[in-house]
Every structure is written in C-alpha cells, then in structure tokens.
C-alpha cells in the first residue's frame, strides 16, 4: 500500500493513523493461527489430518455463501436471502440432474440452470432495492421467503434424490486429501477475489461502499451495478445450494437454513465492515475458517453443543471490538 513516491512531509501530514486499519487486516489471520494452536494443544483428535480435512469440508459451503454476501456488505447493504435462494437452487438442481423424481439428466447444464435461477432471485432483490427504493434488509428478507416458496413448490412432497455421478462424487472423491467441494470453494474464493480486485463491478462495489455520491458525481450510474452485485451474490448462494445437494445427494428445501447470519458473522469476524467499503473476499474467507475451526474445536474438546453458538456470538463481539477500539474518536457516530 505505501508508495515509494510519497515524500516525507506528506507522510507526516497523513490524516488518519494507519494502525487501526492494519490491525483490522492482520488481526483475524493471527487469531485464526492462535485458535488453531490452542485447540491442537488441548485435543489430540483436533490436530489429526482427518479433522483438518473435516474442517475444510465443513467450511466449504459457508465459504461460498460468504463470498457472495461479502460483495453486498462491501456496498454497505445487507443480504438475508441466502436461505431461500439456496433452498430453491438445491431443489432445482436435484430435479434437473439424474434423480428419482423425473428422467432429466442434464448434468452440468442442470447445475448451470440452478445457479442461473439463484442469480435471477438475487437480481430480484437488487431490482426491488433500486426501483422500489426498499432497504436491502427488507428486499432480501422478502426474496428469501419467495425462494423458499418456489423451493416448496418444486419439492412437491417427494424427496428428490440425485443419482448423478458427477454431483455425487463432488462430496466424496478427494484430491490431495481434500474433497472436490473444498477445492470448488477455494476456487470460488479465488474467483471472488479476482472479481473484487480486477473487475469494474468489484471495484465499484468498493466505491459504492466508500462514497456513493462521488460515483454519480463522476457520471457513473450506480443502480445497474447494485443490481449486478445482488445477482452475483445470488449466483454464489445458488452454487452453495448445489454443493449442499451434492453433500446430501438429495435436494432439501432447508438446504440454506441459518446460512444468512452465519455468513454475515463470518464476514464480519474476517474484517469486512457492515458499513461497507472495507474488507473483502479474502478477509471473509479467513473469517469462515475462524468460525469453523472454533465450532469444530469446541466439539472436539467436548464442549456441549448448546454453548457453541454462544461462544461464536462472543467471538464476533470481541473481534469487532478489537477492530474498532484502536480508532474510536470522540463524537464518532456508531449506528
């Protein structure tokens, strides 16, 4: 970030100390390492390779969902539509690839269609946001319900089980010790990062979170990009839904249950701000690992499952407090 060209007096005249920022960026990875080491010491089962694989497998779906939600958060919006969209995509893909309900066998094409359906649903919340001027909190809430409805319609009382080899193998077959789903998730994170770093869409998502008015002042029409971001997020949720289906080799309406707040938690823990403009896909990915390692570690050292949610809640608060305290100002507005 610091540039050789900057002359000294400029550095002296910096408006804001960098400490808070760098701490926000470095904190989560450090925390991740620490937590991992602590659990490794506490529990022999935890440090086994098998468990590391297990952690990565468990993290994969959440990672993909968080990828999507991160872009929305970057804009300073919020997205609660993951459960509905994932449910719809999960059922859709189950019905489109080889399954026990109908004799479709679209294979990859089926996956594509499911993801497109999800993207369309995401697009819906984006449109409602920019056309009806309804806060994203509500539009995504509504779209989530719509998605669940669509899923229930398609479910139609009979569990669709997939017999598609490709999809089934994703969760089972392993490459270098990790299941294909894990690699898929890794790929998503990479793609997400590339979009965020190298695409106009991604950069504008940052800009919208940073100073929306400046964009329009520079003659950029913001609305289309907002819609595009929600569509992109929807696509990610859709893929996540497909992944759940391949894990269970069956389409569930509840495929996305609880992933909305889980993803927000992960993103925030990773250092992506709800106010937008800060953080990113990589931050969120770290957050996902942090949360997953915690949950898994707690089980391994035998903490009652009931406590696990609570511990996570605590972690979020602590993580954010740690990030904001170094740079708190008098008369600062915190919503």
């Amino acid at each position, binding site marked *: 970030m610091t540039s050789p060209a900057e002359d000294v007096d400029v550095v002296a005249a910096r408006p804001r100390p960098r400490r808070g920022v760098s701490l926000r960026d470095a904190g989560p990875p450090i925390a991740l390492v620490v937590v991992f080491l602590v659990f490794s010491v506490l529990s022999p*089962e935890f440090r*086994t390779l*098998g*468990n590391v694989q*297990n952690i990565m*497998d*468990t993290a994969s779906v959440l990672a993909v969902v968080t990828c999507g939600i991160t872009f929305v958060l970057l804009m300073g919006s919020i997205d609660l539509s993951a459960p509905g969209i994932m449910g719809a995509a999960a059922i859709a893909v189950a019905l489109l690839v080889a399954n026990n309900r109908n004799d479709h066998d679209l294979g990859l094409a089926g996956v594509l269609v499911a993801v497109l359906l999800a993207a369309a649903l995401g697009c819906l919340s984006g449109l409602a946001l920019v*056309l*009806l*001027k309804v806060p994203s909190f509500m539009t995504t809430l509504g779209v989530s319900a719509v998605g669940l409805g669509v*899923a*229930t319609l398609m*479910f*139609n*009382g*009979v*569990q669709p*089980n997939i017999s598609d080899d490709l999809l089934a193998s994703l*969760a*089972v077959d392993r490459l270098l010790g990790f*299941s294909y789903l894990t690699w898929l998730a890794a790929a998503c994170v990479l793609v997400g990062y590339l979009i965020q770093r190298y695409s106009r869409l991604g950069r504008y998502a940052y800009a919208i979170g940073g100073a929306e008015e400046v964009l329009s002042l520079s003659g950029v029409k913001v609305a289309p990009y907002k819609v595009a971001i929600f569509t992109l997020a929807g696509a990610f949720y859709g893929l996540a839904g497909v992944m*759940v289906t391949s*894990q*269970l*080799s*069956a389409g*569930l*309406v*509840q*495929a996305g*249950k609880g992933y909305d707040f889980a993803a927000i938690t992960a993103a925030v823990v990773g250092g992506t701000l709800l106010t937008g403009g800060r953080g990113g896909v990589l931050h969120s990915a770290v957050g996902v690992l942090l949360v997953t390692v915690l949950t*898994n570690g707690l*089980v*391994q050292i035998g903490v009652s*499952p009931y406590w696990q949610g609570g511990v996570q809640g605590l972690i979020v608060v602590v993580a954010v407090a740690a990030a904001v305290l170094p740079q708190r100002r008098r008369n600062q507005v915190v919503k």
Partner: protein
Amino acid sequence: MIVKSRSAVALLSLSLAAFAFTGCSEESNAEGGDDSTAAAGACAPDDVKLVGQVRNESNPYEAAWLEGGDAFAKSVGLSQERLTYDGDSTKQQEQISQLLAGDTDCLVMNILPNGDSDTPPIVEQAQEAGAFLVTQWNKPADLNVTDYSQWLSHITYDGVTSGQQIGDALADAIGGSGGIIALQGILDTGAAKDRYAGLEASLAEHPDVKLLDQQTANFSRAEALEVTKTLLTKHGDDIKGIWAANDDMALGALEALKAAGKEGKVAVVGIDAVPDALTAIQDGAMTATVSSDGPWQGGIGLAIGYCVATGELSVDDITDRAWFAEQFLIQQDNVADFVSPTVDESEYACDNVFSRSQGPIS
C-alpha cells in the same frame, strides 16, 4: 424516479392481488360455508370440515401424511384443509387459535404437535371450541386423553419398542460387539425420548456393544451429516454402527460415511421407513428401519374424527383413546413388502378405525 417506482409498486401490488385470488380459489371450495350449529356427534357428512396440520410439506414423511389425509377426504366426498407451520411452535399455536375462531361445530382436526409441550394448549383450545381433535406422536405422559371430551384420540408408535428393535438389529449386524454412536432427535419430543430409551434397553441386553458418543441432530438430514462427520473423525474406526432416531438422520449419516469412504463398512439403522431408507435397505446400505405409515396416519386421524362428528362412532365406545399403532421391523428380507405402503379403504370404516391398535399407551 419516484413516479416510476410508485407505478412499479402499483403494478406489483395489482399482480399480487390477482395472485392471491388464484392462490385462494383453489381452496375456497373446501369450506362448508354455513353456520348450522349442529351439536357434537350430529353433523351432516357434508358439514364436516377436515383439517390436517403437520410441520411442513417440504419433508417426505409429512407430505405423504397430507396425501393420505386428502385420500380419505376424497373417499367421503370432502376435501382436507392443509396447514403447515414450519416446525415453529408459535406459528402452530397461532394457526390453531385462528382456525378455532372460525366455525368449529363440525371441525375435525388431525394434528401433529411440534413437541410434547405444544399438545396441552392445542387440546384445551379444541375442547373449549368444541372441535373434534386427534393428535399424533407427541403428548406429555401425564396428559390424559380421557380428561377431555373433544380430544378423541392420541395415536403414536411404541418408540421404546422400535428403538430397541433397531438397536438389536444393529447389534446383530456388527456381530454383537463393538462401538456405536447414536444420533438423537429433537430432545423435546416424546418420540425422541422413547426411542433413545429403547436403545438403552437394547444396549443393556448387549453388554459388548459400547455407546461411544451420542449427539442430537434434531431429526435433520443436514445436521446428521455434520455431526456424523465430526464424530467419525473423533472416534475413527472404533465406530462399527450408527443408531439414528429417524431415517432422515440415518440417511445423513450414510452420506457422511460415503464421504469418509466407509460406506458399507459401518451398519446404520433408523426409524420411519421413508422411501429413501427402504431403497437404502434394498441396496444393503442400511441395515434396518421400523415402519411408520405416514399416509395411514394422515387418513386415520380424520377418519376417527369424521366418524364421531357424524355420530357413527361414540367417544364412550372407544376402549383405548391413547393407543399404539402397529409397526414392523423392516430389514433386507422383508423390505419388499413395504416399498409401496397401501392403505385399505376398509381401515377407515367407522367400525374398523382401530384395526391397527396395539393396545393402550402404557
């Protein structure tokens, strides 16, 4: 911009209104729209209003249940109103009280309470409103059906027996000795408690079978997958068998085994005999399950209510109002007989509605 959005709103709401109508008109014929205040037990067959309520239609067993309800309603020339509450106790109560605020004189309800603790308020409201109520699966042990005139019957399967049966089947499958793990259901449900009690009983008889670990997966396939994965890494090859309190969780466990490459090496048992489980048993992926007949449950509850409402059956004549329904242990040898559960119309005949009773709930 505002103008545009306003008009957009108008448009959307219009299309919604249309939507609402199509959505509702399907059902509006279900309502017997007259307020004839018929005394209990003397309803004209046409006045009877049949309601079946389950958690959600997005679960095969409960969807089949509602189908069964429709089948019975059709057989008596009526139609069933379907209610679902997404496994949300609050919403269930809200629906019931709203339902009972309507015309209740000839209302017959076949209800699946979300949990034991949800049964008392349902029963009391039905009693107050004078609707005919049949509940299934969940009720607090100390709540007696006979204390209420409108609560015609409570039907359930003997969870202890089924839990024990599959426990024994599992023990045999792993050769009478070895470690197993148990996946519990929603802890608040009688079903979950009884079935686990059954497992304990079975364990008592097989001292060499060791219960390594037990966690709840809330009857959910997805949760079972995660829990099993973790337990597999925790206990590794010590796990010889997996006992699941229902088939959905058993199937989730199967996926976990598949992912761990242990498919077929670990025996899995469940309860409910959902179609997927039966196929799994046919392929030998699963060891055993216990039949519970969704379609029949959906129909029989309405049938009992219908018979009492129309006066063909008197509450006082019912010997056991809280009773166990008949169930079978299903394994590879006999699975073929259960692949397509059929309900015989005659079982809904008013003199025959208790044909599957295995006696009172002890």
